């Protein structure tokens, strides 16, 4: 019992170490982060201004479309951050040259990956709130019914699924040091296309709609829009929440399994090493 408590304590300290390291990196690369944030704001504005340019819409319809696009862009930016941080677990360390030291440390892989995921959620929420606030300043949006708490809870639930999928794509740079990261972006791009970020999934070809059904982003976006535009609470959002829970329950163990297999492959073939 005492041994189990000590091991748990060890793992919790390791988890804190993963988060601590990422906080140091954000501090040290703060101007890079600022530049990336400005780029994200510009990108989001480009998308949201589309609503203003659509002809023959009433002012109310313009406001509605503006909000729909804004929510889509912000949620996608958030999920993209979660996905990228977890996906780059290997690629970043390989680039910095620390990969061997991290993988030979007595830190369990699930704790390592969950640490990355936990940091990604906190970092992503801060970025998403700032992005929403800054972009909203450009438009006089009136959202009297918005249930921001429900939207935030849905985002956190959706993050679990994205962490699971991120684990699966994080393994790609382990298997293929040169092409792995790019393949991760391909996976992210596929989710962007099918999940109805800027348009309803009903406009997609049928086979893409089937893929949309297993994308957590589909349910996260739907729930976020309902909670912000129509003020839905968690009970009313259950239709979106349960698929997110199911996808999360499947994606996380599957992600861990895939990552473990990828790590074994990398160890077998000598790919668990720095590049350059």
């Amino acid at each position, binding site marked *: 019992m005492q041994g189990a408590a000590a091991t748990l304590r*060890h793992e919790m300290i390791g988890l804190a170490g*993963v988060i601590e390291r990422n906080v140091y990196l954000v501090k040290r690369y703060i101007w890079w982060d600022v530049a990336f944030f400005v780029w994200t704001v510009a990108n989001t504005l480009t998308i949201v201004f589309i609503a203003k340019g659509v002809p023959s819409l009433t002012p109310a319809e313009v406001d509605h479309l503006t909000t729909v696009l804004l929510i889509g862009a912000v949620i996608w930016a958030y999920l993209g951050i979660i996905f990228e941080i977890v996906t780059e677990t290997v690629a970043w360390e390989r680039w910095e040259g620390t990969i*061997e030291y991290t993988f030979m440390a007595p830190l369990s892989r699930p704790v390592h990956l969950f640490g990355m995921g936990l940091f990604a959620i906190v970092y992503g929420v801060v970025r998403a709130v700032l992005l929403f606030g800054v972009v909203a300043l450009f438009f006089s949006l009136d959202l009297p019914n918005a249930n921001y708490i429900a939207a935030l809870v849905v985002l956190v639930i959706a993050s679990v699924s994205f962490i699971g999928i991120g684990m699966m794509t994080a393994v790609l740079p382990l298997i293929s040091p040169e092409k792995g990261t790019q393949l991760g972006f391909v996976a992210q791009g596929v989710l962007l296309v099918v999940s109805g970020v800027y348009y309803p999934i009903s406009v997609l070809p049928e086979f893409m709609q089937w893929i949309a059904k297993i994308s957590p982003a589909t349910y996260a976006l739907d729930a976020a829009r309902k909670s912000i535009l129509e003020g839905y609470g968690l009970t009313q959002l259950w239709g979106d929440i349960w698929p997110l829970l199911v996808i999360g329950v499947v994606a996380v163990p599957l992600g861990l399994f895939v990552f473990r297999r990828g790590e074994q492959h990398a160890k077998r073939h000598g*790919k668990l090493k720095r590049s350059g």
Partner: protein
Amino acid sequence: MTQTAEFTSDIEMASQPEAVVVPALEVRDLRKEFIRKDGKRNGWRRRRRRVPALKGISFSMERGETVAILGQNGSGKSTLVRLLSTLLLHEGGTAHVFGHDVFREQRRVRRMVNRVSVEASFFKKMSAVENLSYAARFYGMGHGETKEKIPVILTRVGFPEDRRREPMENLSRGMQQKVALARALLTAPIMLLLDEPTTGLDPRSKLEVQSFIREIRETHDATVLLCTHDLAEAEALADRVGILHQGELLVLEHADELKTRYSAVTLEEAFFAATGKSFEEEGDEDENKEGGD
């Protein structure tokens, strides 16, 4: 005491001489192959071939002993260190650290082992203190413990106090290597794997690092496996010297015995007699034997 119970029991086992009956390191018939792509193609696929990096090497080390493994580039030294660091899986044979199977009890072994390699390998924008701090967490060291120990260990390796908050990228190679030594020692490993720790350092930094390794031997109860292609370094630091050539461990004994065996005056002559090659000749880079993308 803030280490885990599992870790503590390993340390305790290794620090009670009368209780220890197992060698610090026991390697038996250890084999490793890599797959290398050659330029030719079989249809659309590039042809691959298996290249042996270690061909069944066997040796053991006693607790507190320092063993140097000499070899040209590509002889298999780094592969050996990476196998013992749990970064590679083997093709056959066994390796045990204080009785624990390197391939089956990886987490136990990881608690006992740390490593300094030829590349210092840090997050370059982060400072020495930040790099040491998060790395120590992975070994279960809490904030209070690192706050106390990091300044002490950086002082021990001769790292200047006024540069501890500077990004690593501003530091010289010698300075970075001192931080790498500090990182390895911070976790109190009972087995230290040094993979060409002084390669590429200027003479002064090299002497400082060697002097610190000597100090570790005298003050810290660690078993040290030193892989190097610096003959003088091997002779000065090691209790026994081994020659690894093309994945085979040709000999492992005291430097004087090794010279006597090959009727040589210097280690360099002994190396030439054992391998038929001069020490400066390049072998195949074992790191490049691995399959690419």
